[in-house]
């Protein structure tokens, strides 16, 4: 019986793993190959090998350099702020105060909103003068009519805020579960020693969740540029490329300018960088954990 099991298992596993390898490795190999070629979608038979030419084009492409910078900003800033806001929210929700329990059930909602819907929701919220933000401002007696999506800096800040809106619930959920697993006795002991609630958070909660934050940061960094649909709906990458990260630029290059080989090069460079940095970070994190 025991000897027959592995065979049965592999018959069960092979279709799924085979499908996955076929559906992921072949397309990735195709993109890499395409990035080394001169390809015109109207004349695919004329495709020829041009080596690293498409990659050399990066250096003289100001829009690429701008998009790379925007990518860096739109990965690092939202992830850092998601971690800080997520921690703040998780500490608040851990207390289970009367009247905040519904938040524990509902706070996840933004993270599962369809991204395109999230884009429309925020566009509607930010309409100058008559959107929800202007309404909120009017409640506090302010007359707010600025067009946040109209200038470069405020558009970028808006995209970052929407990115935080999508990411905070997940980060808070993960940090909350890590906070909930801290034994109550530790807090009781601190209380007996005369520590205030704030001191207990600073000296117990935060140090104990920091190890979990590294891994959360890496996973969020891989996820955060999934806000492509939001950018598509909210700003279209503008104004003047201010909110155009590399994946958005690559999308336009492929499907608006039909420059598929160059787009492939952008995507290969983008993907290897982001996946590379994330895998390297995971190794660093697990190395420090083992080192302890």
């Amino acid at each position, binding site marked *: 019986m025991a000897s027959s099991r592995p065979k049965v298992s592999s018959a069960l596993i092979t279709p799924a*793993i085979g499908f996955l*390898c076929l559906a992921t490795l072949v397309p990735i190999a195709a993109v890499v190959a395409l990035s080394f070629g001169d390809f015109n979608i109207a004349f695919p038979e004329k495709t020829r090998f041009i080596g690293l030419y498409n990659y050399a084009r990066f250096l003289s492409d100001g829009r690429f350099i701008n998009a790379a910078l925007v990518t860096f900003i739109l990965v690092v800033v939202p992830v850092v702020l998601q971690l800080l806001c997520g921690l703040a929210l998780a*500490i608040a929700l851990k207390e289970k105060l009367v009247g905040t329990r519904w938040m524990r059930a509902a706070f996840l*909602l933004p993270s*599962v909103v*369809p991204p395109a819907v999230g884009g429309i929701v925020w566009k509607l*919220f930010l309409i100058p003068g008559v959107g*929800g933000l202007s309404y909120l401002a009017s409640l506090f007696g302010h007359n707010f009519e600025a067009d946040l999506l109209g200038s470069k800096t405020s558009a970028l800040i808006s995209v970052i805020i929407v990115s935080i809106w999508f990411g905070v619930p997940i980060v808070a959920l993960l940090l909350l579960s890590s906070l909930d697993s801290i034994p109550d006795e530790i807090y009781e002991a601190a209380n007996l020693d005369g520590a205030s609630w704030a001191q207990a958070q600073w000296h117990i909660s935060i140090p104990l969740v920091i190890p979990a934050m590294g891994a959360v940061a890496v996973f969020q960094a891989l996820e955060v540029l999934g806000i492509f649909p939001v950018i598509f709906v909210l700003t279209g990458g503008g104004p003047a490329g201010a909110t155009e990260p590399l*994946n958005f630029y690559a999308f336009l290059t492929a499907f608006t300018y039909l420059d598929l080989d160059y787009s492939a090069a952008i995507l290969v460079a983008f993907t290897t960088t982001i996946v590379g940095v994330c895998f390297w970070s995971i190794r660093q994190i697990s190395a420090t954990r083992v080192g302890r």
Partner: protein
Amino acid sequence: MRRDLGRRIYGYLVSAAFALFLFSPILWTLSTSLKQPTEMFQWPPVIVGEPSAQHYTAIIADKDFSSALINSIVVSCSTIILTMALSIPAAFGISHLRKTAMRRLLTLVLALRAAPAMIYIIPYFLFFRQVHLVDTKIALIIVNTMFAVPLAIWYLSAFFDQVPREIEEAAMIDGASTLQTMTLISIPIAKSGIMATAILIFIGSWNEFLFALTLTRDDAKTAAVAILNFIPFEGTDWGKAAAACVLMLVPIVVFVPFVKKYVAGPTTTGSVKG
């Protein structure tokens, strides 16, 4: 410490601030979807005047959007079926492998998922164009299945791990084959986990935008993309766009409470305790 004033001030202040930040855009959309066109541009803005269902009846009557909604449902449900057909046997098999082999396979499955979705867009577009499947639901179902299988295998194998081995072995001793054990014993026991996984697959497919945008034109367009048609070019009538957003959110709001523990993704659930 329970009576500490700092704890209460912090807890209420931060909860209130995040409640405002996380929910006000959605509530504003809900309110816009119920407004009369004249109320939409009133100054100062209003939350709700006289609620009206006119935008909802308008978008349901809109043929393009209602057929896109049906496409979304068909694509999502087909993705669930195809993903389950591939992932249930695979997860059952992985769950019965030796532990080290299992970890290695699961890591491989997840590593395949790490690349950003955008890297797949050009090859899939060229491939489906070549085989004349652009603007078909089949193309979307294949792509969505590709994204769902790693997630499904990861969750399902964890659920199959929880099925007591003694029950499975008892069935085997009584003469059941591996397939019979899986379908008659393990799947019924892991039923609730399988349902949760199905919901997660549904949400992923329902929300999918990038491939629906590039691989469809008219016939196979899903609601996540068709919704863009309601965005007004000049800021006049946002009622339909808002109503369409609310409709898109209905299944999400209904289903999410059942999968709350799992939405953080398979890579991080190890650290999540229910």
